[in-house]
């Protein structure tokens, strides 16, 4: 009995390795190889490229990687919760711009004193993200507008709107405009890891909290089950008394709330003010989308993927010194997303074929033995 059970556990582990971990590894390696081919084909120093990318990061760079990964992970969770329901929230980009802008204005105004300001700002940023996400969600539910198209439009509107607000209601700082700086009493201390490097941003912890919350919500709650059911089949969900339209609204709201948090670690950790382009980091929404795909929408996968993407981006800063343009890692990032999806599709096809073969093999004696 126990032997059989051990065999089953063994097969499960083998299956997990073959059909989940192996495709991911293959995809990452394939993306790195593809990038190396690009570097080699354009006559850039391939040796310097490989050495730099695979070198151990300095203490300072390690901190940067963790900080960046926290923001990427938050953005990825915002995208992933929608993916699980079959929604494409390309609008994370716009939602976190709006969240960052609203949060920065609120924090800078200093309405709430001291550390409490941090908490209040997070709520404001989340709320702004929800409002922005709701535009796309309501258009989707009431008018049948594709959330992808409306999100693309809303991303640009968000960017222009934030620029307009900062220019007209912010402060002049040199050649640009920014929101008022937050008071020192509202600036949290970070986590010190190395003596010779800056601290990890305090709010990087948000990524961990959201990650645990995400895993719990999807895996252990009724709501998470409803969400995944709706993602698998909207008609099946409807037949089980789940209102898919309500689900779209709720999930987009959660996604928008998480998106509102994306830039907060950097805001409270180092910039303390908001202004496009100097005091803001654009593009995290799209990076998050890629990481959600890479991490197969699971908490662990996203954690790993965000560290990988942050690692690639940070290492690339030193590529310039060996004569390779740092933009090359964006090729890696784009290709890895394609590769991971393709690898999983191939793994799925192989699995299906093997299972069909296995079933055919098991049925074989029965069919030949049966009377004609």
């Amino acid at each position, binding site marked *: 009995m126990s032997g059989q059970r051990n065999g089953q556990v063994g097969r499960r582990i083998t299956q997990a390795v073959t059909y989940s971990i192996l495709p991911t590894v293959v995809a990452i390696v394939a993306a790195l190889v593809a990038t190396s081919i690009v570097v080699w084909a354009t006559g850039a120093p391939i040796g310097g490229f490989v050495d730099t990318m695979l070198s151990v990061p300095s203490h300072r760079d390690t901190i940067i990687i963790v900080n960046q990964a926290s923001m990427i992970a938050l953005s990825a969770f915002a995208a992933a919760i929608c993916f699980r329901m079959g929604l494409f929230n390309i609008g994370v980009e716009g939602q976190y711009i709006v969240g960052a802008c609203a949060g920065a204005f609120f924090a800078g105004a200093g309405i709430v004193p001291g550390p409490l300001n941090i908490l209040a700002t997070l709520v404001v940023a989340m709320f702004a993200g929800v409002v922005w996400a709701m*535009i796309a969600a309501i258009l989707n539910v009431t008018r049948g507008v594709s959330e992808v198209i409306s999100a693309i*439009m*809303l991303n*640009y509107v968000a960017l222009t709107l934030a620029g*307009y607000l900062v220019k007209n209601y912010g402060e002049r700082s040199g050649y640009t405009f920014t929101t008022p700086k937050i008071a020192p009493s509202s600036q949290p201390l970070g986590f010190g890891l190395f003596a010779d490097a800056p601290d990890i941003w305090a709010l990087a912890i948000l990524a961990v909290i959201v990650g645990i919350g995400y895993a719990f919500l999807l895996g252990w709650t009724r709501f998470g089950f409803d969400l995944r059911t709706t993602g698998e089949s909207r008609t099946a969900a409807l037949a089980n008394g789940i209102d898919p339209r309500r689900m779209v609204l709720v999930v987009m709201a959660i996604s928008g709330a998480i998106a509102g948090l994306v830039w907060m670690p950097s805001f409270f950790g180092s910039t303390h003010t908001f202004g496009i382009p100097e005091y803001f980091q654009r593009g995290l929404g799209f990076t998050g989308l890629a990481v959600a795909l890479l991490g197969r929408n699971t908490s662990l996968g996203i954690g790993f993927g965000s560290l990988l993407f942050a690692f690639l981006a940070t290492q690339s800063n030193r590529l310039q010194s060996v004569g390779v343009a740092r933009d090359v890692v964006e090729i890696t990032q784009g290709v890895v997303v*394609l590769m991971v999806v393709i690898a999983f599709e191939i793994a799925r096809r192989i699995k299906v074929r093997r299972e069909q073969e296995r079933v055919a093999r098991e049925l074989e004696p029965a069919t030949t033995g049966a009377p004609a």
Partner: protein
Amino acid sequence: MTILASAPSAIRQYRHLTLVLALAAIVTVSLVRVFTDQSRMTTPGTLRLALIAACPILLAGLGGLWAERAGIVNIGLEGQMLLGTWGAAFFAYHFGAWVGVLGALLMGALGGLLHAVATITFGVDHIISGVAINIAGLGAVGYLAQTFFTDLDGGGPRNLSGYAVPTEVTIPGISDGARWVSEQRWFLISDVAAAVAGVTTRLSLLTILAVALVAVTAWVLWRTPFGLRLRSCGENPQAAETLGVNVYRYKYIAVLISGAFAGLGGAYLAMVASSSFTTGQTNGRGYIGLASMIFGNWNPTGVLASSLMFGYADGVSLLSDNGPLVHALLLLLSLILLGYAALKYVGGERVTGLVVALIAVALLVWYLAVDSVPSDFTGMTPYVLTLFVLAVASQRLRMPAASGKSYRRGQAG
């Protein structure tokens, strides 16, 4: 029989209506121009700028149309366009203007090929593949520019200038005559003359090519057996397969053409809209192209009309000191919406009509309350307009039935 007999008359009636609406639009524009005394609304210069801004959007939109008619959603247009800007600059710098155009077509098609392999052969979700191509395309263009342009004369790690561009032509008699008429500020006549002058003065050959491609697309897709088969892959690939159409091949061709069109749009940006290359030059025009395709209801002429409108908004945002002009456009938009609301209300869609009327009145109040609109809002116009149109008219738009769906050979059973 009755259906067959009534169809042509319905079409004729429809065309009649379109003509009346177009005429009404021109009259409204002219009225607003005279009333607000914003002559810059329809000068040859403004309209020429609008046309130049419209062409890249048009080419991207047509590219999107080709792919979607064969059932593939191409969000990667932005990345393919970016590749086109680099291809145009690189090949034009070394081999001349038209080789540059060809290079842009090839680079765009390369991006299209990537999308085709991922979506058609491997069944990857179309949006995922498109997003990946946009990320990779941006990186590739930045990388290629720095690698190949840094040491060139007139080049830098992020830009290149000093390459040949396609010739510009001016039609001698008409250009000057129309310009003179447009300067007289006559009601209606001057506005039409300004449009004529705008398209006959320093017209790039690439512009002519872009507009010609609208006709070519319409003819190939709707008047040839090849086009019929291609569109059948976008409507019902299983049915097409049972009729012996090689669906994979048609989809591949369509996505390659789609990428090439987007690449051509990139060439237009790097050669006509500006005579130099910079990284990230597309600035979201691939996405607006996609919007113009939806706005144009997946029809070539619709794409042309909507990209001209987006191009106008884009062109106006480039004019200096455009606050009062945008202010005047607010009145125009409000009037057009009022007209649309009236049509809807009479047509029986009371609620939609009332909502649109409400928005029109809000715009009118805004117009009356201020003297000038911040220029930031002009840049927003195409996006807000698209959202608005989608919200109001999404039920009337019809995309190809199988667009965005995965297809595997042998599904037809």
